[in-house]
């Protein structure tokens, strides 16, 4: 009786192993690519207001981001900011007015050297081999160390259950729960399908996304040909989000 029970258990264990070996190879070799983004601020600010708003809204729609009535509870992955607060170290007096009044979209910088991942006590946030700083909400315990560590303030915390505040549910994406941190993921689920991130698609060419490792990619060419700035470069976090002014 005992013998057969043990045999059953070992059989199940080996079956589990066999089944778990049955995963197909990933769509993109993460070791080879290094994703980055360029935001052409001039081009972006020339867009009409409705189209600029669309860039922020499309992210909310596809990622089931809740819209809370109170500013304190705000959860956002990409939002508009101004030049002064985005680039505090580059902000000089007597800047041309059009630069001072620029609308600067801010999102996670996907740093090469991300401080948020180093403080996470559970390994819920980490940098993938392709350079994307991503989250595993299953593991997040809501300690908000990452929010304290991020020098750009690009992470949001779910203070309340977000579900009742999602205007329209996207069935192909999950929602988050109360007590987890969330942020931009460069739309990993879209990259896997060979698509561009949603904001890039909605930006009408003012956002350029691509592989920084590939010298022939559009983003590498643009960065070679233009002078670009990054947020707080003096901190050494090496953001992979570049701005053209």
């Amino acid at each position, binding site marked *: 009786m005992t013998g057969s029970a043990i045999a059953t258990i070992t059989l*199940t264990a080996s*079956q*589990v192993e*066999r*089944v*778990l*070996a*049955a*995963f*197909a*190879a*990933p*769509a*993109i070799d*993460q070791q080879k690519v290094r994703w980055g983004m360029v935001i052409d601020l001039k081009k972006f600010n020339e867009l009409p207001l409705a189209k600029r708003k669309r860039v922020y809204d499309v992210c909310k729609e596809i990622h089931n981001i809740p819209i809370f009535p109170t500013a304190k509870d705000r959860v956002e992955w990409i939002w508009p900011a101004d030049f002064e607060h985005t680039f505090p170290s580059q902000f000089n007096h007597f800047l041309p007015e059009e630069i001072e009044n620029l609308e600067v979209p801010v999102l996670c910088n996907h740093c090469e050297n991300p401080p948020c991942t180093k403080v996470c006590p559970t390994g819920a946030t980490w940098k*993938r081999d392709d350079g994307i700083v*991503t989250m*595993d*909400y*299953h593991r997040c315990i809501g300690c908000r160390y990452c929010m304290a560590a991020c020098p750009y303030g690009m992470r949001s915390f779910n203070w309340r259950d977000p579900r009742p505040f*999602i205007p*329209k*549910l996207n*069935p*192909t*994406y*999950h*929602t*988050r*729960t109360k007590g987890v941190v969330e942020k931009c993921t460069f739309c*990993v689920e879209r990259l*896997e399908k060979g698509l561009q991130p949603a904001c890039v698609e909605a930006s009408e060419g003012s956002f350029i996304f691509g592989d920084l490792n590939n010298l022939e990619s559009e983003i590498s060419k643009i960065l070679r040909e233009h002078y670009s700035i990054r947020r707080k470069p003096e901190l050494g976090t090496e953001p992979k989000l570049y701005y053209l002014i």
Partner: protein
Amino acid sequence: MSKTPLVAVLLIFIGFFFFPYFYSVASGQLGKPVPELEKPKGDHCIEDAKWMEENHMVLLKEWRDHVIRQGIRTYISDTYGTAYNISTYTCFECHTSKANFCDKCHDYTGVKPNCWDCHVYPELLEKYR
């Protein structure tokens, strides 16, 4: 010394310890048969049905790790050789209702998985429609 307090404490302990049992007997839930689940669409599950019944949580956990950590989105069934998109919603393509399938067994066994706090299920979609 009197043994009365000791016996009283013992009785109270036994009372608390077996409370779930007495409760089930009183509410008539003891010996209730395993609930009848809704028949799924399609002719087979991702793996052997019996295996899935026992190990679906292992499979879902491995699916989670492969998708999030390694970006692997396709799973090839060991039993049937069919390729499946790794997503919690893949289950609902055949098991069309959470209330009539997942919840029935989970309620019976007293398991409360928190998958559906975040993941989308058919009933939630109905609510948003």
